[in-house]
């Protein structure tokens, strides 16, 4: 097992970066470079962790890079971290999103505090992904709201105040259920074992609770994660929030923070309450399928590009939820892979939409026509991202989506088959949007926009590279994810529902 110092550095480094960025705020260029350097180091270290990660540990039911320090025994507070195949690529994604957002979506106004919030957000998100303690997870999960709120409220569009408030209240109310659930579970555990209060994941996972309690706790957890993901019908905060947030904020929210929801659903809701699953599965699977079809339907009609990506994300999160709830190792592995792939793909979408907005001052579809004429490279980059999103085989999105569907079909055939209709729908709304924005003859302002600059192309290199490489050679990633998913799914379904 590797030392937990790696994770400690990953959590603390952005905090230090944020501090320095704020201290140097008189010269915002310096703040920005401090942030970029921090982000680069963070990404490099995250990749090192991903390469070093030992997937054989999962077979023994342990994580890598683990350590546990109890901070306050009476409160059950602990610093308990570790990484397994499920959280590993979320750690990489967290660092990657920060890196790309800093380079591709600069905010020139009050830049020091903008990058400060971004760094802070990175630290909190990373800490929640590596938390091996449920209470610790919750604390960081909640902390992420604060930087997100300020990023939206200070740097967003015209409706930013309303959007930020809606986002905050919505997610905050959701997590109220989660907190109650966590505390209840902790007390039950303490009551039954008679020992100290603890929220350690491994301890709580083995708490014997009745079927009824299990169902209620599952619901409490699932609501918080459903809001965060978002899962239909808890999604209505997301279109307005993604649309009003600045590009960097949209990237953080959709590419990264949404994954806290699906990650929580798999790790905690599914992982801690196996007894609830037989009852809950059909319900959540149905919500997921509705989300896929409904999200796609609304995406066809929505008038602007950011909302389009928001509704497309509702559909994509539906696929992820489907895989998580499928009860199949293949499906759940596909879901974890899609969490990463969807992060990369949405990042690409929002970056390019940001470039367009900078040039045209609008991301309304009706204002844009024929952009492929003046901006062929930008159109080509958008095409790659779009094709990955609609699941073109050979690109990253397909591998994950196919695993989810084939896994779900094996355990819940009807849900899998109906969800596959989403594959048609995704092509419909994306190609239609592409036609309206990039095809046709550009006139006036549209004809005069410059093509993607060298720097903009470089920012998209990691996105395009990951889309291509993970489409053709996902093996190194899958080899790291699968054993941990296998352990989790078999823990919750010892009778072997899964194939």
């Amino acid at each position, binding site marked *: 097992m590797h030392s937990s110092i790696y994770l400690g550095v990953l959590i603390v480094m952005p905090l230090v970066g944020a501090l320095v960025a704020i201290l140097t705020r008189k010269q915002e260029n310096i703040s920005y470079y401090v942030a970029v350097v921090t982000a680069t180091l963070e990404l490099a270290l995250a990749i090192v962790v991903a390469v070093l990660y030992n997937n054989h540990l999962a077979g023994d039911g342990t994580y890598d890079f683990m350590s546990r320090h109890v901070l306050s025994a009476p409160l059950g507070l602990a610093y308990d971290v570790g990484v397994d195949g499920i959280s590993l690529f979320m750690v990489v994604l967290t660092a990657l999103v920060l890196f790309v957002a800093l380079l591709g979506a600069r905010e020139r106004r009050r830049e020091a505090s903008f990058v400060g919030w971004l760094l802070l957000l990175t630290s909190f998100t990373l800490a929640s992904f590596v938390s091996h303690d449920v209470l610790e997870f919750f604390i960081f999960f909640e902390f992420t709201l604060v930087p997100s*709120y300020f990023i939206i409220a200070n740097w967003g569009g015209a409706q930013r105040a309303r959007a930020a408030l809606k986002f905050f209240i919505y997610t905050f109310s959701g997590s109220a259920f989660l907190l109650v659930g966590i505390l209840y579970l902790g007390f039950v555990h303490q009551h039954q074992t008679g020992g100290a*209060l603890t929220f350690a994941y491994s301890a709580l996972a083995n708490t014997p609770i009745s079927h009824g309690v299990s169902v209620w706790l599952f619901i409490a957890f699932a609501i918080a994660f459903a809001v965060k993901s978002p899962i239909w019908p808890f999604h209505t905060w997301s279109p307005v929030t993604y649309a009003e947030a600045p590009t960097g904020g949209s990237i953080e929210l959709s590419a990264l923070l949404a994954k806290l929801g699906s990650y929580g659903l798999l790790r905690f809701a599914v992982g801690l309450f196996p007894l609830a699953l037989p009852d809950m599965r059909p319900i959540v699977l149905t919500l997921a399928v509705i989300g896929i079809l409904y999200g796609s339907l609304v995406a066809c009609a929505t008038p602007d590009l950011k909302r389009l990506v928001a509704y497309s994300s509702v559909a994509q999160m539906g696929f992820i939820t489907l895989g998580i709830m499928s009860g199949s190792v293949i499906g759940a592995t596909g879901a974890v892979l899609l969490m990463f792939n969807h992060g990369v793909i949405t990042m690409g979408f929002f970056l390019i939409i940001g470039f367009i907005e900078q040039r045209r001052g609008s991301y309304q579809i009706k204002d844009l026509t024929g952009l492929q004429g003046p901006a062929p490279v930008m159109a080509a980059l958008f095409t790659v991202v779009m094709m990955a999103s609609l699941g073109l085989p050979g690109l990253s999105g397909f591998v994950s989506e196919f695993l989810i569907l084939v896994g779900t079909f094996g355990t819940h055939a009807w849900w899998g088959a109906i969800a596959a209709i989403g594959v048609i729908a995704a092509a419909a709304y994306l190609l239609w949007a592409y036609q309206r924005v990039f095809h046709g003859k550009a006139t006036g302002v549209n004809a005069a926009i410059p093509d993607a600059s060298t720097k903009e192309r470089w920012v998209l290199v990691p996105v395009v590279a990951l889309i291509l490489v993970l489409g053709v050679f996902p093996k190194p990633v899958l080899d790291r994810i699968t054993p941990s998913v296998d352990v989790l799914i078999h823990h919750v379904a010892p009778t072997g529902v899964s194939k």
Partner: protein
Amino acid sequence: MAHIATLILLLPLLGYVLVFANGRALKERAIGAVATAVVALSFVLTVVAFILLLHRTNREVTVHLFNWISVGSFHVSAALLVDPLSITMCLFVTGISALIHLYSTAYMHGERDYRKFFLYLNLFVFSMLVLVLANNLLMTFVGWEGVGVCSYWLVSFYFERDSAASAGKKAFLYNRVGDFGLLVAMFLLFHYTHTLNYLGVFHLAGTLSPTVATLTVLALLLAATGKSAQIPLFNWLPDAMEGPTPVSALIHAATMVTAGVYLLVRMSPVLTMSPDGRLTIAFIGAITAFVAATIATSQRDIKKVLAFSTVSQIGYMVLAVGVGAYSAAIFLMVAHAFYKALLFLGSGSVIHSLNGEQDMGKMGGLAKYLPITFPAFLVGWLAISGIPPFAGFFAKGDVLTNAFEHNKLLWAIGVITAILTAYYMTRLFVLTFRGNERFHEIEGVHEPHESPWPMTVPLIVLSVLAIVGGVIDLPWAHGATLAHFLNPVFGFVPAVAPASTGAQWGLALVDVAAAVIGLLAAFAIWRDTSENPRFESKFFAHVWYWDDFYDATIGKPLTRAAQFSDDVVEPKIIDGAVGAVAVGIRDSAEGLRKIQSGFVRQYALAMVLGFAVIVVYLLARVH
């Protein structure tokens, strides 16, 4: 063998990479030369691989490339299967692709996106080879969608034209509906056989229950109707004629659109398990052949006639698959690739000489102006009409003989379609090359001129192939035929009593009679006039109102539903419900009003305070 097969596959991709990486530095000539050379080389290697395969006793070579996806019990490799079927496909795919690449170097001369055109074209050939060489369904699916996306790009090549952009999208969406079928087929097969490898699936095909087999076959059929433009998903193909003509010849006539037939033939061991499924396939094929032929009789656009003709001819191939005549399907596919590519390239030459005019009403009398295109087109016309000894006669005859042995109704539909085929092709031929010269009204055309050599050479080569193509499967050359080469791939072919020699002669005479009737009828009607509304049914001209039907039953309702969801369901119902809950909570807790101040700073403060309260509570409880 392994290295050769890998090279066959990778050469077109290499061409793509070379042109992509050095494109801006390269001149038009160099781009065309590189793109054509890699495909030609790929063809040469395919010939080598073919000869090597002939000399092997075990004609089933698997080439493992790398592990693609491996999760739990799900394992899929990137691997190739070289067997008589895949090598036959590779031979005509690479051969015709090479010719059409050559043709395009001249046809696309001076286009703004010349480089992009060849990038797409090379990528297309690569995808097509992935499709046919894959040793498992999932990898075939990679090629399957790869050719689909290349087709999307090439159909909407002139993206500034709205009709081209819409046609590309339509092609992709119709194909996606078909892809849904292929996905479901893969789900079913993996669920019941735990593998997606062709050989593995075939090994266990016998264990599939009749229901599962039929479901799988129907799902595969849906996939085939999308890709191969069959009923109910056939009407994207005529729109796809918006693409440049070489694209229509290569993708929308000779290669990609036959992929659905290839898929069905490849899955023959599964098809064998479902007689019901196969009967459905046969009828879909026969009906499509007939319907598309009726439509072709009333089109004015030369490329539209050829497009519906392609739909109709593929209908024959699907019919052949349905009656278990797999090798006949492939025979017709190869012969059709020769003469239909010839006809499309010939029409491209015609269009080229008339400054882009496609309306046959403005052609006529072109025979003397196009000394190479004219005889080439003549060959294509006779071949598709089913006149002996051209390739089409033998290939179509093979299909009809098999249909006759299986089901007389299917055969009858096939023969009627044969009459229509000869009719609409003769009409096209007469309107284009015979009669009075009507092209003088086209702006800028004074004297049509023959095309340059890169365009005429492919025409000559394809003409020769369309004349002699029939020899690959002559009914009396036992042991040295395509059928003999292919049949081991299909395992046991359903035993149908072969028609006696006498019956075969009789059927052949019927075929010839059908061709002659159609031909003479068209001559009689179209020899003297280009306007003959009595023989151009509005119903046929409007594609049986198929598009309008889909638009009214699917397109419009879905659009309205989407708009309704965005305008009403989202803001009023779902968000409204959330708002109502929030208001309810607020009203029921009047005392907490002060907190609802709307300032998140206060919420954040409340969060911290709340957290502190919990901490205090816990402390109090523990001590």
